[in-house]
């Protein structure tokens, strides 16, 4: 899930100033027309960076910050090199599923987006041959796979859940995606966005999840669909996906643009 340190659940007392600011920004963004929202978002990112600098005396310089960012980029490459596409995440018996499975997002549960199932169309674009939108019925008849795996949040907590959906590698092949491309990007109904590397997209346990625990994926877990990757941290698993695209241009991500590691996985 789109987890982050600013979730109400476990924000450290000292992070509250940072949290309030980000929550406030998020609220303002929603009220603004799109171009203004975009400008505000840019400023928001700078503010976030500023908070990071002021919050820590040791990184009181742009140099330290950009040095840390380039080490994070280096770590992306090391992790891509370490990633064995055939190595599977552990699976668990259904008796070990965490109940209730925690809700986690950069907003409260009552703000989870409502998506109308009938009118919903998944947009597929970028370096794919079949650039047509998909209805939920069309996705529902594609090959289906179930998994009971551990969801690990960047904060450190984890929970075991059961997801079902279309093996994402098969879906990419179906739409004639350029499998040599570097990234798959995602845009979500809650304005969240993220992107992943192609080897992870093709990993056998990567699912375009349409169900949770045997029923239609509920709103709190990302209706109409989330990308479920047991090899990635929660913030890399986008919920409420409305558009996906294959690209060679680094698409970044909501948390990644603020400093979370882009590869973000195991």
């Amino acid at each position, binding site marked *: 899930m789109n987890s982050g*340190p600013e979730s109400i659940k476990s924000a450290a007392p*000292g992070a509250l100033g940072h949290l309030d600011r980000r929550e406030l920004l998020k609220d303002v963004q929603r009220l603004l027309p799109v171009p203004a929202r975009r400008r505000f978002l840019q400023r928001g990112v700078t503010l976030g960076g500023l908070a990071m600098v002021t919050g820590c005396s040791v990184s009181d310089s742009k140099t330290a910050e950009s040095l840390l960012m380039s080490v994070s980029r280096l770590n992306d490459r090391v992790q891509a090199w370490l990633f064995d596409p055939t190595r599977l995440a552990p699976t668990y018996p259904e008796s070990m599923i965490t109940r209730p499975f925690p809700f986690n997002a950069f907003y409260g549960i009552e703000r989870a987006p409502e998506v109308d199932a009938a009118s919903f169309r998944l947009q597929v674009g970028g370096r794919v041959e079949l650039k047509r939108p998909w209805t939920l019925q069309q996705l529902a008849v594609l090959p289906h796979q179930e998994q009971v795996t551990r969801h690990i949040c960047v904060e450190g907590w984890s929970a075991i859940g059961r997801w079902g959906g279309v093996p994402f590698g098969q879906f990419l092949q179906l739409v004639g995606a350029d499998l040599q491309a570097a990234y798959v990007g995602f845009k979500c109904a809650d304005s969240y966005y993220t992107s992943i590397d192609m080897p992870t997209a093709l990993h056998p346990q990567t699912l375009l999840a349409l169900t949770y625990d045997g029923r239609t994926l509920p709103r709190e877990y990302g209706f109409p669909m989330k990308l479920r990757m047991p*090899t990635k941290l929660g913030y890399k698993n986008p919920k409420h996906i409305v558009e996906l695209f294959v690209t060679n241009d680094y698409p970044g991500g909501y948390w990644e643009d603020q400093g979370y590691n882009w590869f973000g996985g195991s």
Partner: protein
Amino acid sequence: MSSASMKPGLPGQAVSIAQPAWVRASHWLNALGVILMVLSGWRIYDASPIFPFRFPPSITLGGWLGGALQWHFAAMWLLAVNGIVYLALNLATGRLRRRFWPLSPAAVFRDLGAALRGQLSHDDPFHYNAVQKAAYVGAVLLLVLLVASGLVVWKSVQFPLLRELMGGFESARVVHFVAMAGIVLFFAVHVAMVALVPKSLRLMILGK
């Protein structure tokens, strides 16, 4: 670099080096690496505590979880590369055997007793007493455990053998925390001993 061949009391070597430059360099680089890892690690821990307490944010490093993670995953290179160089040189030069062998529990208890009675001498900078040996070997083992459990927390899918050894992802977090607590305890005693035996600080800076 000072050669490890300098031995105590060799004629013609009035001033002999007890800690060669590579030991001193790797010691201080390790100290920096451990401090950065522990302080950023506390901030990361605070995002989702395992135990019912948090570290005061003011004594942590990184400003927020994302910043702390960046520090942690940058300083890990310093800690790991320096640690590998330290262990490799210790093996290659024979310093490991010379300095830390033999080491028995009986000797540790004997020297610990002597130390508590104030009868343990630090006069010979070329030899560690058994308590020192145990403490330094213990610190190295704790760091190895920290790296191994950290690899599982970071990459639980890519290191299945380590993951099973740690008892799974969740318990790897606990192992990582407990090993951290161990190294912090070592740090506290180590610094206290330096305060009691100030010439050991000079030894680790100047080598003699």
